[in-house]
């Protein structure tokens, strides 16, 4: 057995069913072995598409996503996706070929120091020097990727190692003396947390991506205590978006109710989130009335990193919530809820209707037509925020977006990965005309594997989010954001790939367009030509606080007041 076969066997033993990848010189021995392997391979058209697909596969399924690429350029094309998976704590194992050991360090053809490059954007990485190490390295990589705070792990395999005769064993032990994640929360701290919540008058529960797997416990805890729930962008779906206890998303484009709740809260229970600046705004002005912040996170380094923490609980969200449930009591929060209800009723997410088709109504129409029952992926920008605001997903692992890194172009490969992971689900990629064009080559992957994904492009002809900032903060100097003069005809582009294309340009054709997308038997690329001056609101400008929230575009405000 060669190293390449040993690798695939080791992957099989980890339960790997699918690899997203792209072959090339230095990984050819493994692709040769793959020819006889039961593991399914999804051939992408660019390695970046592969790593994003593997990321979404992981996020949608809760399993480890696997991506494979060749040395040098192939591996370097994974960089953005690895950084994305790292920022959003997603378990991905990347396998890259490298030049033969004797050539490493000689500037050989297609050589790059991939372990060096990926060191700061992976949870760990390996350069395998010895063929018999393969089973142990694979075991460790999967263990590290999927345990503790999940993250990407890269395995770099020189070509000659793949070709060497394997004489080792697959029954290997993990050799990770320095890696022992704490999963069980400290009982004393949990007791203190429950105590603080019991005494609280205005408590809130803030939930991030680290609680996606704890949705059942979270729902039970919230319902038992009656504490309002706020989910970050990464936490969307961890708590049902149609639940009366849900206040929406916090932060830069969060709801008024969520941001005000944080502003006025006296006790905050934060679970599986890392107080990103898009959530907190200016940290020194974040939650000024909170005398107790309880932070539950599996990564001790996140606790106290940005926000002062009074009760730290290092542990897995699910395990900690289970423990907390044992002592959770219904809280008397009637007057707090009266305030929250008032904010919620008075400031719902809304938009000012225009005579043109608008992004918000497109997303809302899809949400209503599907009952929120879909896996949503997005690119990055205005459409992403609109999707987060107006497509309230009700189930965990169903809103797959690039939160931390904000990677444009993830929408389509995320949809591919999600569909491969959960083929029975309706998968909708809400994308922007800018984002979509960064990875649109993956339409070929959609065709090749007959993946029924619905791509909904909200085409405003601009890099809308950048345009919005230029509009608000750069004196309307629209520097390099205009795309409409050179965008393709997206429907015809889709048709060139053999994918159904849909184009909707007028407000009155919206419902027909939605119907055309959802009723299509197979993949669709639908272009909705939307109003180009739309802004995402509410908005807390970068570095601001809840009090600095802008509720609507200044121009719209004047109209109302006039």
């Amino acid at each position, binding site marked *: 057995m060669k190293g390449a076969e040993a690798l695939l066997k080791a992957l099989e033993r980890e339960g790997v069913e699918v690899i997203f990848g792209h072959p090339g010189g230095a990984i050819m021995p493994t692709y040769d072995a793959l020819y006889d392997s039961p593991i399914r391979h999804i051939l992408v058209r660019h390695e970046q598409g592969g790593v994003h697909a593997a990321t979404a596969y992981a996020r949608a399924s809760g399993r480890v996503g696997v991506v494979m690429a060749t040395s040098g350029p192939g591996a370097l094309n994974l960089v953005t996706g690895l950084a994305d998976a790292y920022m959003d704590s997603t378990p991905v194992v990347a396998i890259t070929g490298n030049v033969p050991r004797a050539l490493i360090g000689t500037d050989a053809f297609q050589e790059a120091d991939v372990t*060096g490059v990926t060191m700061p954007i992976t949870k760990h990485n390996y350069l395998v020097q010895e063929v018999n190490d393969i089973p142990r390295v694979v075991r460790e990589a999967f263990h590290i990727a999927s345990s503790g705070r999940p993250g990407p792990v890269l395995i770099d395999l020189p070509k000659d190692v793949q070709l060497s005769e394997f004489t080792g064993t697959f029954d290997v032990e993990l050799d990770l003396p*320095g890696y022992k*994640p*704490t999963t069980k929360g400290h009982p004393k701290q949990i007791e203190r947390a429950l105590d603080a919540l019991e005494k609280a008058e205005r408590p809130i529960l803030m939930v991030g991506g680290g609680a996606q797997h704890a949705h059942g416990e979270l729902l039970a805890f919230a319902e038992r205590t009656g504490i309002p729930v706020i989910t970050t962008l990464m936490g969307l779906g961890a708590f049902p978006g149609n639940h009366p206890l849900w206040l929406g998303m916090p932060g830069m484009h969060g709801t008024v109710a969520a941001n005000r709740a944080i502003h006025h809260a006296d006790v905050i229970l934060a679970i599986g989130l890392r107080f990103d600046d898009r959530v907190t705004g200016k940290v020194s002005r974040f939650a000024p009335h909170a005398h107790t912040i309880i932070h539950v996170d*599996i990564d001790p*380094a996140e606790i106290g990193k940005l926000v002062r923490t009074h009760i730290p609980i*290092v542990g897995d969200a699910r395990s900690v919530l289970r423990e907390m449930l044992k002592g959770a009591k219904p809280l008397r929060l009637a007057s707090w809820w009266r305030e929250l209800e008032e904010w919620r009723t008075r400031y719902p997410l809304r938009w000012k209707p225009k005579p043109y088709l608008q992004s918000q109504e497109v997303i809302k129409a899809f949400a209503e037509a599907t009952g929120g029952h879909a896996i949503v992926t997005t690119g990055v920008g205005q459409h992403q925020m609109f999707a987060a605001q107006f497509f309230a997903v009700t189930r965990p692992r169903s809103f797959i977006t690039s939160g931390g890194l904000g990677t444009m172009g993830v929408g389509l490969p995320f949809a591919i990965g999600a569909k491969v992971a959960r083929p029975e689900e309706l998968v909708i990629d809400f994308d922007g005309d800018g984002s979509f064009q960064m990875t649109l080559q993956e339409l070929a992957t959609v065709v090749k594997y007959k993946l029924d994904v619905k791509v909904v492009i909200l085409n405003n002809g601009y890099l809308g989010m950048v345009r919005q900032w230029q509009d608000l903060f750069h004196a309307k100097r629209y520097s390099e954001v205009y795309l409409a003069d050179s965008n393709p005809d997206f429907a015809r582009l889709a048709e060139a790939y053999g994918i159904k294309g849909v184009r909707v340009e007028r407000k009155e054709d919206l419902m027909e367009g939605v119907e055309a997308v959802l009723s299509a038997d197979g993949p669709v690329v639908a272009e909705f030509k939307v109003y180009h001056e739309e802004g995402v609101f509410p908005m807390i400008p970068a570095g601001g606080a809840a009090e600095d929230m802008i509720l609507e575009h200044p121009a719209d405000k004047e109209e109302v007041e006039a």
Partner: protein
Amino acid sequence: MRHVISVLVQDHPRVLSRITGLFARRGFNLESLAVGTTHVPGLSRISLVVSGDDHTLEQVEKQLNRLIEVLKVTDHSEPHVERELCLVKVHVAGVEERLAVKDIQEAFRARVVDVAQKSLILELTGDSKKIDSFIEALRPYGILEVMRTGAVAMSRGERTLKVREKREAV
């Protein structure tokens, strides 16, 4: 504030690069770094001198602990021994200078490890402050070059850097 931190690591390739990369990436201020093998095969020990406030130091410790190959991190706030070794090459033109340098050498209990016609190499071990003073004392005579190892540290008494004590890893 200045802190001396000891880190026990698996001596895998690139482990030093992971640590220095972490400091660079997170903007931690690293004053010196010393590394060597230990009596346990496969384990190396690193001494870091870091400056920063309490919050920064807490992050330094936590971020180091996140590295898979880091087994144990200790910030030496407890009684500890700190030593640094330094080699200084001094220019000595004449007998008078040579005698003056010798006085300094004796005062600091340094050793002469190389004698040449116009230069001496002095070796001194001590804590970093003592080395600073030594260098300052020699400066007027014309220092040709200096090599410091960076501080190494060890807790006094029974306390040791034990592997199994590592907590809070992710």
